[in-house]
């Protein structure tokens, strides 16, 4: 921990003081952190065939060890970073010139600073726990080795993303996690639904990726560089219009990766993947990459009020939409996925608030990473015990049969609804406070969201663990093996204690060198908000109890429900909108183009080739084989040449 005087100094430091020092000493391990899981991944994925029996039997251990190795390095680097002054906690490792064309140079640069340090710990820490969990969860899967190979690939790509010192290197990681996500969602590709979901995730992400790609191109066009340092320095010189465009394009990228409205539709379908994947990629880490991107690009958003407002709006809309969907879903993973959307909406909202919110966006991101991974793994544990049943209406009364799962899940539950003292309480409160300081209406909406969160999470708890047993026949619920419950316990502890990062303002001080920090004066003391939000949460819990706890839960979903529920069940008609606005016109356009191609283009091409062929046959006929006609041709040619030369002169 740094001394208080240092903290004071750090608070006053300008946010754009990105002056990284070259990596030395233990920091040369930055690249190793990425390399280890990458090599392991290559071994596990490519080491296929009968000669790799050992890989099939022990591959999962290699994968877990690789992730653990990265985590250990991450901890060592983090501790070393803690020991440094706030001013030089930004370390740059330049491996080689990746692209060097004319005046354009992109280095394979990694930037290790307070922001990426936190991410590294989250990714490798939660990642390692999920690796351990997967050993049990995927035990009977014949392709477990491959699964671990993909998980390692994801870890390597995600680390590349958060450690990149250049937008293009970030893009490399960005696409890498997209690929890993695609491979893992569709891991059970024999299921039609999984294959389709993977494709959908890939296609929707492509839209966002185009945004990010265009942003990078725009940086290159306007600033001639794509490195964080270079862009941060140059951004002050560009017009505000360019800054706004950059901000909006980056937001588009963030929307795709983080499943924010309007590119949210893929996340719910992505739950087709194995549950550890949902926990790691689609809850704790990858989907938060959008938030990371916005926070990392704070120097761009600094200059553009419009883009920041857009971020706030996107965050707010997603927050509400996700909560809405979470209320209506009966599939436990989809309910959690809706919740993930909603919580990332909170983070986006915070990130849109500027320096007042960046630190809390990251804070919530980390606590969310803990409790959501915890709950997803808990859900996986429940499914594991219930023969892969996902319908909560077929659960009930599992608390006694799965005490460890229930206990750890409860910690996550209390954390997410913001029960005082649990991590979510601290992180969500700060965001709502900051939102109130920005705009009263935004604050009210965010606070209401907290109430709805309490409602749907209580509903989930009641339907799964409490209430009457509505199991299918042949169901024999049982607790999961220790290899699965141990990570649950660790994550449960983290869910409880994660909130202490904020004590003494540590998290905001820690991130100040990267993001800057400022507080707004609130009209009323902070405790008033805490009490108010807690009351809202209590109301949410009470409503849920009244609806689901006191009455029997039907084992099939009721048909006659309000429009609100119906809309929630259908993901707020996101797919319908996509189909109507994009897919069908796209299909029509494709069909039209195909017809045009067949008749217009092919017709023209055929006509031309036909014409050439006919001319060719004609020319062939001139080749009679008689010297006399050849001579005549030459004579005629000589005349033409003569006339051509003389005519020019006469004219």
């Amino acid at each position, binding site marked *: 921990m740094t001394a208080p005087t240092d903290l004071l100094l750090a608070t006053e430091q300008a946010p754009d003081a990105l002056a990284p020092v070259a990596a030395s000493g233990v920091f040369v391990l930055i690249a190793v952190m990425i390399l280890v899981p990458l090599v392991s991944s290559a071994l596990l994925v490519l080491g296929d065939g009968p000669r790799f029996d050992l890989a099939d039997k022990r591959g999962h251990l290699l994968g877990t060890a690789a992730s653990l190795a990265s985590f250990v390095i991450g901890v060592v680097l983090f501790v070393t970073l803690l020991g440094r002054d706030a001013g030089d906690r930004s370390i740059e490792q330049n491996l080689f010139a990746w692209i060097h064309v004319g005046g354009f140079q992109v280095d394979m640069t990694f930037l290790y600073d307070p922001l990426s340090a936190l991410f590294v710990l989250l990714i490798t820490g939660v990642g390692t726990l999920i690796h351990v969990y997967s050993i049990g969860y995927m035990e009977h899967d014949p392709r477990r080795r491959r699964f671990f190979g993909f998980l390692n690939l994801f870890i390597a790509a995600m680390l590349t993303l958060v450690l990149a010192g250049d937008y293009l290197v970030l893009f490399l990681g960005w696409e890498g996690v997209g690929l890993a996500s695609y491979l893992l969602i569709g891991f059970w590709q024999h299921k039609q639904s999984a294959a389709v979901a993977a494709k959908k995730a890939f296609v929707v992400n492509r839209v966002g990726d185009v945004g990010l790609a265009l942003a990078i191109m725009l940086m290159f066009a306007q600033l001639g560089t794509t490195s964080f340092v270079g862009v941060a320095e140059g951004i002050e010189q560009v017009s505000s219009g360019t800054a706004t465009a950059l901000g909006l394009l980056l937001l588009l990228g963030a929307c795709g990766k983080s499943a924010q409205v309007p590119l949210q539709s893929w996340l719910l379908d992505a739950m087709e993947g194995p549950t550890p994947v949902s926990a790691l990629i689609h809850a704790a880490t990858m989907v938060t990459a959008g938030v990371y991107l916005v926070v990392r690009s704070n120097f761009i958003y600094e200059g553009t009020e419009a883009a920041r407002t857009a971020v706030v709006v996107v965050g707010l809309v997603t927050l509400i939409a996700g909560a809405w969907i979470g209320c209506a879903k009966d599939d436990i993973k989809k309910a959690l996925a809706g919740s993930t959307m909603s919580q990332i909406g909170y983070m986006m909202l915070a990130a849109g608030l500027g320096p007042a919110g960046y630190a809390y966006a990251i804070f919530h991101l980390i606590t969310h990473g803990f409790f959501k991974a915890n709950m997803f793994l808990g859900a996986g544990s429940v499914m594991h015990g219930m023969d892969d049943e996902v319908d909560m209406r077929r659960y009930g009364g599992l608390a006694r049969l799965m005490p460890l799962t229930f206990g750890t899940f409860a910690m996550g539950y209390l954390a997410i609804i913001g029960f005082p003292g649990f991590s979510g309480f601290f992180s969500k409160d700060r965001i709502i406070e900051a939102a109130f300081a920005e705009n009263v209406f935004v604050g009210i909406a965010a606070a209401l969201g907290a109430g709805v969160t309490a409602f749907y999470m209580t509903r989930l708890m009641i339907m799964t663990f409490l209430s009457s047993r509505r199991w299918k026949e042949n169901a024999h619920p049982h607790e999961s093996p220790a290899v699965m419950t141990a990570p649950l316990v660790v994550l449960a502890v983290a869910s409880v204690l994660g909130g202490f990062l904020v004590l003494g303002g540590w998290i905001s001080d820690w991130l100040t060198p990267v993001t800057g920090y400022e507080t707004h004066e609130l009209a009323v003391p902070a405790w008033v908000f805490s009490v108010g939000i807690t009351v809202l949460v209590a109301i949410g819990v009470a409503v849920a109890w009244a609806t689901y706890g006191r009455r029997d839960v039907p084992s099939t979903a009721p048909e006659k429900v309000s429009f609100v529920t119906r809309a929630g069940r259908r993901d707020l008609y996101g797919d319908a909108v996509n189909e109507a606005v994009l897919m069908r016109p796209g299909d029509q356009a494709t069909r039209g183009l195909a017809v045009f191609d067949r008749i217009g283009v092919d017709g023209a091409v055929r006509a031309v080739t036909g014409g050439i062929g006919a001319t*060719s046959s004609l020319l062939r006929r001139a*080749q009679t*084989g008689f*010297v006399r006609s*050849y*001579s005549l041709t030459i004579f005629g040619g000589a005349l*033409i040449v003569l006339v051509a030369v003389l005519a020019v002169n006469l004219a």
Partner: protein
Amino acid sequence: MIHPLLVSASAPPPIDSPTIQYGDLSPLLVVAAVALLGVMVEAFAPRALRFTIQTALAIGGIVVALAATVWVGLGLDRASGDVLARGRVVAEGAVAVDGPSVFMWGLVLLFALVSMLLFAERRLEGGLSAFTGQAAAPPGSAMEREAVEHRIEHTEVFPLAMFALVGMMLFPAANDLLTMFVALEVLSLPLYLLCGLARRRRLLSQESAMKYFLLGAFSSAFFAYGIALVYGFAGGFGLGDIDQAVSNRIDGQNLLLAGIALMAVGVMFKVGAVPFHAWTPDVYQGAPTAVTAFMAAGTKVAAFGAMLRLFFVAFGGASWDWRPMFWVVAILTMVVGAVAAVTQSDVKRMLAYSSIAHAGFILVGVTGAFVGTRDASVTSVSSVLFYLTVYGFSTIGAFAIVTIVRDASGETTQLSRWAGLGRESPLVAGAFALFMLAFAGIPLTSGFIGKWAVFSAAWSGGAWPLVVVAVLASVVAASFYVRVIVTMFFTEPTGEGPSVAVPSMATTAVIVVAVVVTVLLGVVPGPVLDLAQSAGAFVR
């Protein structure tokens, strides 16, 4: 020198003996000497040894001449003038030894070297060369059979080729019109003869020789008449004198213009430009394939070299008069060559039309008449030199492959019989496909860089519409090149598929060299492009 005072009244007037710079002319002289030696060998060496001696003599002579060429090239001095030029005029003004000359000498010598390897191929015909054993014997006669039985061979093909090589080297270096005419004939006559010497399909071969001779003589007449008219206008044969006269002209225009036109007919016949191209398909098809390869590569270099020198040096001052005519001929050549090739069913004829189309592309570079600017951009001369290099090697390689795709009756040149060659011999078909791609100008092959060079020179010279036509013609041309690839790789053979005979090291070496050059000049064209660039302009 004799002191004037010592000359008595009755003594004849003093005549300065001409000074010949033997060193500068050594490559030419070496080749000429080897050709004469070859004639001696025919007269004195025992029959059994002749083939070996002639082959060794020809190849050795060419290697020595190449070494001499390099030596001459390294010793070239920079000529005075505002554009970069190296070298000087030697042999009393008859020959210009300058950068382009030396480059083309080296080029035709290299082409001749690989062609001689094709000439020396004896494995494909069961130990006999691809040339007829007894040219005087009527096809199908008892005499012919006897010659085959006694394994008689015409080893004169080597000295004949060397004589042709002398002409090829002298033609682009000739600095006066008479030397140029002599060189043209020295180049042509042995080739006429060589064309008629095929071992197989002798009637077709003799017919092609006859046609080539008659039409060649016809076009030479135009050339000679053109020389006469230009002499009438300029009062001299030297290209420098003509340049002076053209630049300072005030009257007698029509004499000059008619002369230019008629001389153009002569050289355009040699390069195979439309409408003087009619001989090309028939001769290419009928001639022994090794001769076709030699002729297609070597004659093109020589004729384009002479064309460049004639029109850039002698008629450079009248470029506004002849450029429109070149526009017309270039467009006609590209379009007719490319379009007519589309429906060809014989590989050799297809390659002949392809050579016509390529002549058109080179004419585009010539028509640009771009002499370059300060910032070393590609000039017309250097781009044409580069194009000739890449075209020549690919052409020789393609014809070398034609010699090894065979059936019982010899070479199978029917395109339809090439179906399935990709499966029969992937390497050979792959090499041929590479040459086709190079002809089509696909990137990463030498053909692409060649096309880029001539087009960019023409563009810099202001002939951009010509470049547009050229690109369109390239598209048409690409279609028939790709068709060959489709036939070889993606068409089921009808009946018994083609077979690839195993040639001797000589032909294999030719194909390998051609493949390597084609790829190398496509990937790293820099050194050769720089060499062509540093050859500079013509001296005058």
